[in-house]
């Protein structure tokens, strides 16, 4: 028994250590001397970083709350035209990363942009630019991030509404509440844990955003971190800024965790899970509901897709010049390697928890899944800091060649950091699969003479095939969209659709960014549709 525990401990320990690297590195920056830049920064832009990050956060939280809860409410309780379509169509917003959304906003609304072109073609020459609203800067970033992230609130709230007992609705009726009062006093509060969990996720991702804020020129903590590292060559400064960001994030992380646990207990067991009788809307109400959902769908998905499609069509040379196959191959490469390690280790960790029931193991497990909360850019920069530190110390000790090239600008380094970021997804995916296997099944297998390994191989793995598949798909979607880590750590001449789009956009070739953006959205949409049934059931 002793040997077997050691194995689980070691692998869980390793994973936790890996995840802990960025956190420790970031905190370690407090012990390093501060450069001059920090002082300049403090005088001038640090306040800006903080206030921009804060305004961004508040704006996004507000919008995602309204859109997410609103849509979830409508599709969960009512029947109106195309409601079944909207149920899954609204999830497609996940296919559009915020930075691509940002490009679409610019392309559409800028002076002499697509809106101008449309108006020009429809109504002839005119001074339209003055009347076209420009969604850029902080406002643009808020919009871009909101519409790409509201899906989290939507999905979680919808799940909560879905599992709410019919009793709640009837209770409202019995008390003579109007629909509005029912909503605010009964339905909304009961979904509170789910909503909070969704908003916490949104908040973490918002603070983590790099692509859209850097594109819009909004100075936030993430852009500050990036500049400190790449322009000022000041890793200490970069990590110091990271630590400020991490403090924000830790608070949110705790909040999200607590809420998610509460959300599980909120599924009411009384009255069981009777299918709700949905209320059919008539007349103008039905029309309003339709318009609301359609508008959100339009803005969050149709709009960026159409904009990108439009540009791909009128500037076809960029599509021709794009090595689509190679980009696709690169992405698939990353996905396969990452998924492979992620799933294996997620299995090992989950199995270890199942078999060992040790408290320490569970703590390690919690640490190892916290990587998802750390913004990608912090992960990447901290990782580089750590490797550089190791490199200079190891070189001193062992007089080996530089190890940096193994980890920085290599697929290995990239996969390692992906691992830290996405381990939670793999772990939770396998975990929820495992949760469906009653532990007595394991015991039954042991008592038929099955060794632990045989039980794992013949009982667990086949049963978890679906979970493995699902995790792979979700990982694919995330890796396709991932930007900051890939940007910083990728091997040279190794591009993904995301990095290609970003590079074009940041080099004043926005119309060239359209083709890779479009392809990214299409691939992501495809995978999202495959898993939509699972996402919705959750």
């Amino acid at each position, binding site marked *: 028994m002793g040997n077997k525990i050691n194995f689980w401990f070691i692998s869980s320990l390793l994973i936790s250590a890996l995840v802990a690297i960025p956190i420790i590195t970031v905190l370690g920056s407090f012990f390093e001397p501060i450069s001059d830049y920090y002082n300049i920064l403090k005088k001038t832009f640090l306040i800006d970083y903080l206030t921009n990050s804060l305004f961004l956060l508040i704006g996004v939280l507000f919008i995602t709350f309204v859109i997410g809860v609103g849509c979830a409410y409508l599709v969960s309780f009512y029947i109106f035209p195309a409601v079944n379509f909207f149920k899954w169509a609204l999830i497609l917003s996940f296919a559009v990363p915020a930075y691509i959304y940002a490009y679409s906003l610019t392309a559409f609304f800028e002076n*002499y942009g697509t809106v101008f072109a449309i108006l020009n073609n429809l109504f002839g020459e005119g001074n339209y630019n003055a009347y076209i609203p420009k969604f850029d800067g902080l406002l643009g970033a808020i919009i871009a991030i909101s519409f790409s992230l509201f899906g989290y609130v939507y999905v979680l709230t919808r799940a909560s509404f879905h599992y709410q007992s019919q009793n709640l609705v009837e209770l409202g009726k019995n008390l003579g509440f109007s629909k509005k009062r029912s909503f605010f006093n009964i339905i909304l509060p009961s979904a509170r844990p789910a909503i909070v969990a969704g908003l916490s996720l949104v908040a973490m991702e918002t603070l983590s955003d790099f692509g859209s804020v850097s594109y819009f020129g909004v100075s936030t903590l993430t852009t500050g971190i990036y500049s400190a590292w790449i322009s000022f060559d000041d890793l200490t400064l970069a990590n110091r800024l990271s630590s400020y960001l991490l403090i924000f994030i830790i608070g949110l992380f705790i909040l999200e965790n607590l809420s998610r646990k509460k959300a599980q207990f909120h599924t009411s067991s009384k009255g069981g899970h009777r299918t709700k009788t949905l209320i059919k809307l008539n007349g103008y109400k039905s029309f309003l509901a339709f318009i609301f959902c359609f508008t959100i769908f339009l803005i969050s998905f149709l709009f960026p897709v159409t904009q990108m499609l439009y540009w791909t069509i009128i500037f076809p040379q960029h599509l021709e010049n794009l090595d689509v196959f190679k980009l696709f191959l690169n992405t698939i490469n990353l996905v396969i390697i990452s998924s492979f390690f992620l799933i294996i280790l997620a299995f090992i960790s989950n199995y270890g928890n199942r078999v060992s029931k040790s408290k320490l193991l569970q703590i390690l497990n919690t640490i190892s899944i916290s990587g998802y909360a750390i913004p990608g850019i912090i992960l990447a920069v901290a990782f580089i800091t750590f490797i550089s530190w190791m490199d200079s110390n190891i070189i001193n000790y062992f007089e080996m060649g530089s190890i940096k090239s193994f980890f920085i600008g290599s697929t290995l380094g990239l996969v390692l950091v992906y691992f830290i970021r996405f381990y939670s997804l793999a772990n939770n995916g396998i975990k929820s699969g495992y949760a469906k296997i009653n532990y007595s099944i394991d015991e039954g297998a042991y008592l038929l003479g099955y060794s632990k390994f045989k039980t794992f191989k013949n009982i667990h793995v086949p049963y978890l095939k679906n979970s493995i598949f699902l995790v792979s798909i979700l990982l694919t979607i995330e890796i396709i969209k991932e930007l900051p880590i890939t940007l910083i750590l990728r091997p040279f001449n190794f591009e993904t659709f995301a990095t290609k789009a970003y590079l074009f956009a940041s080099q004043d070739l926005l119309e060239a960014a359209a083709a890779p953006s479009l392809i990214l959205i299409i691939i992501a949409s495809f995978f999202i549709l495959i898993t939509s049934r699972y996402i919705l059931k959750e």
Partner: protein
Amino acid sequence: MTSLLSACFANEVNVFSSRHYESDIKLYKKFTDQTGIKVNVISGKDEALQKRILEEGKYSKADLYITSDAGNIVTFDNKGMFQNSMSPIVEKLVPSNFRGNNWVSITKRARILFYSPDRVTRDDLNNLSYEDLANSKWQGRIVIRQSNNIYNQSLVASLIFNNGKEETSKWAKGVVNNMSRAPKGNDRAQILAVAAGEADIAIANTYYYALMLSGNKGAEQKLAAKKVLPFFPNQNNRGTHMNISGGGILKYAPNKDNAIKLIEFLLTKEAQQHLINNTFEYSIIDGVEPHELIKNMGLDFKQDLETDIASYGKNQSDALEIMLNAKWK
């Protein structure tokens, strides 16, 4: 004999380039066709490329680092990562103030003003200089991109070179005061802003204007470009601020000879013509006519050949400091 020998080895040259033109790739192909040397291009943003070269140090496989803006080149040179990139051919073709020992310019561009003829009079333009833009008469009428952009930093660096830190600091504060909006967008967005009526004068590089007029950015931007006119400032003193694209051979370049060959190739008339026809820049060597659209902007303007473009690098951190202190976003 050497070409036979070099044909025996993996004959290649590794170029790290932050220029993002498709036409460059086609040009490199021509080079390969002519010389048999394969050109491996690794493209990216400047900071990333530089960081990579620095990190890899002596393990770096980079032969040539090509970038825009003298500020970039010189600061990088000061980090000691270039080696002597000269050859007799290079020295003959490129004027001395457009090269250093370890780097050479390949093309030129100017950073000029674009104004709305509807709102800016001939009088306003009379002897207009960069320095004049701090004048309060331009309040709310100027657009320029953010301070983190290297082109702006080099412009300010050149002003420091010519006018000193203190003057330039005052100037920067004046310009910030005159901005019609907080800096956002790229150079083209500044031109578009003037066309749209959001400002009267934009500061941008010459090639962007030509690019818009060419229709490569769509019909609407061509339309917009027609609404503004270019103006070359400082004609009555030192001349218009010039900048360059260029590169240098890296210290630990594995294929130095091939790198020199490539540089020399890029300085041939044929290559220069190819380059500037596609990118709307000016040729660095004599005897090559720029693109029609550039010609239309006026070729007989006085270029600032006095300012040492190496100063763009030397004064860069001062320039940045001045801009930050002026709250230039």
